[in-house]
């Protein structure tokens, strides 16, 4: 069964596609080794090659073991969950701490908020981020405002809501959405999106210990298709800090989650074909986002491209774009570009056209670098 599932995410690649970069399929073998400035280089303990979902599973085991107040629940989590993220938790930690909920997202999140307010550390799973909307009221009106409205008498800081998000190749309208922008608009929440297995484990452990409610969006495209040597010991990656995934001087490219790897390939194409060296920034935390790192980078390069799968209008790229033009106006050499999904529901059969793949991003990189004020972009 495991083999079958992993095969599913390995797409076919023709020799032609490799030669001409025409396919935008994701190759699971193209795993980037950790850069020198990586988060866990200082850890010397045992490592194991884990994919993103196994890293999350590992983090959940560590969290439940080390802290008695942590519990994990959601739809179908006891048998391991529909993506196997909660495998083994029920057998190890028992029905009091790992249990299934009925099919009621609003109930699940409200219940988790109450549990957090009373001192627990619930990790509530929403089966797909597309289903988080019944719980939107609870997150925005209850979780985000708990501390403020009670003058710090109470808070639901222990809350983590985990949900797989983003395109997966065949998800269609209701299994592919990226709802991060809706939550980034709500002060009081934190929104975290890992892009690699090492980040997934470190950020999840940090989110669980974080004293504010966290919406943890996991890129389901990367669940099985990306593997790394992940340290088995506990470690945390700080929230609110971006990571420079690739250093460069010609243009700054910002992304997160699965899109980071698409951008990485676009940057490679730009380097190989045009000698353009892009600085690729992985935001990791969207709320609050690491403005300082992006500002410093744009002051160096003068050009910015932001890319995400979510629709363009009022997507998170709009926020980054507005903030950066405020802070770096005189440093900009070209308009800030956003390469995003179209303003439509996430399509089923048209997914290949909809997604902002590496070809669209490659074109944007070229356009921004070759921009001059006498021509229109």
């Amino acid at each position, binding site marked *: 069964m495991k083999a079958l599932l992993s095969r599913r995410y390995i797409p076919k690649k023709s020799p032609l596609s490799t030669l001409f970069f025409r396919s935008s399929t994701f190759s699971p073998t193209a795993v980037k080794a950790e850069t020198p400035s990586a988060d866990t280089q200082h850890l010397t303990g045992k490592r194991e090659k884990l994919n993103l979902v196994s890293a999350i599973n590992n983090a959940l085991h560590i969290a439940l073991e080390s802290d008695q107040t942590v519990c994990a629940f959601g*739809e*179908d989590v006891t*048998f391991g969950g*529909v993506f196997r993220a909660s495998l083994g938790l029920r057998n190890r930690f028992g029905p009091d701490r790992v249990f*299934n909920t*009925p*099919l*009621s997202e*609003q*109930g699940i999140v409200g219940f988790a908020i109450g549990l957090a307010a009373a001192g627990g550390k619930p990790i509530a799973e929403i*089966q797909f981020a*597309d*289903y988080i*909307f*019944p719980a939107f009221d609870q997150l925005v009106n209850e979780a985000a405002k708990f501390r403020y409205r009670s003058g710090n008498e109470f808070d639901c800081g222990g809350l983590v809501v985990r949900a797989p998000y983003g395109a997966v*190749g*065949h*998800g*269609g*309208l*209701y*299994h592919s959405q990226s709802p991060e922008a809706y939550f980034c608009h709500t002060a009081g929440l934190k929104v975290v999106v890992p892009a690699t297995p090492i980040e997934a484990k470190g950020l999840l452990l940090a989110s669980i210990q974080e004293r504010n409610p966290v919406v943890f969006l996991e890129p389901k495209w990367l669940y099985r298709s990306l593997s790394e040597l992940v340290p088995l010991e506990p470690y945390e990656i700080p929230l609110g800090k971006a990571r420079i995934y690739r250093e460069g001087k010609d243009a700054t490219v910002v992304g997160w989650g699965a899109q980071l790897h698409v951008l990485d390939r676009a940057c490679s194409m730009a380097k190989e074909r045009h000698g353009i060296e892009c600085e690729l920034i992985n935001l990791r935390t969207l709320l609050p986002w690491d403005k300082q790192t992006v500002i410093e980078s744009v002051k160096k390069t003068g050009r910015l491209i932001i890319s995400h799968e979510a629709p363009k209008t009022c997507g998170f790229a709009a926020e980054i774009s507005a903030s950066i033009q405020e802070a770096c106006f005189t440093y900009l050499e070209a308009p800030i570009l956003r390469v995003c999904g179209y303003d439509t529901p996430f*399509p*089923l*059969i*048209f997914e290949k056209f909809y997604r902002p793949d590496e070809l669209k991003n490659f074109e944007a990189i070229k356009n921004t670098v070759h921009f001059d004020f006498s021509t229109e972009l």
Partner: protein
Amino acid sequence: MFATRRVTSLLPSIGNTFQLFQTRSYAKKPTSKTSKSIQIDFKVPYQLHKCDGPATSTTTNSEEALGFYREMNYIRRMEIAADGLYKQKKIRGFLHLYNGQEAVASGLEYALTPEDHVITAYRDHAFMVTRRAGGTAKEVLSELMGKKTGCSKGKGGSMHMYNAKTHFYGGNGIVGAQCPVGTGLAFAQKYLKNGGVTVTYYGDGAANQGQLFESYNMAALWKLPVIYVCENNQYAMGTSTKRASFSQEYFKRGDFIPGVLVDGMNAVSYTHLRAHETGRNLV
């Protein structure tokens, strides 16, 4: 080896009076002498909640019975074909099949009229090909494969099939979301006085969604001509009903709305039930 799947049905209330009237159906009355009438006694009795029950037997004829059999078989074969295509990766995405539940769609649709509206969740392929809807397996399978000859022009896929002409409102991906929508459809029918009812299907998983209780309340408060049908296939996604629901008597969950537990494996019990419902009398 099938586990008996029970299906419940909830009815709107108008105080405590019910009128029995003739079954309406699309099948022609038997004209040939060979099509004699058959009496069917229901082996599995109805269970009732706050209402008087229909009789325990019904009459049908061989034409009707064969019609059911043909339709249910057609649905089953279509679903099996879809399953095969899915395994060949010609259908991508998610696919929710109606195997085992055909009697519900066939039976209840049989008793509906052209003015009636139907809305369901994502297990909607069968509703496109019933006698009332009149669609073909070709439309459904094209849609599943994302071709523009599909019923939603290939844009919807498995979970989003609709037919405006026969008032089939789909085809909804989010669990339970179709129930308030169905309640609204019923309100429109009452408002427009077109004499139809709305049949809103949902599953045992959706029965735990808050929006259902909001819908029940509105329907009873405003006396809307809506029939809520809970198709209990005993699993809500991956969790069995006894682990997901405190009360598995889904037909009683409407509380102030009368309910009937119907044998989901018997198509004929629906036509009979439809005769018993009171949607008409609410207008």
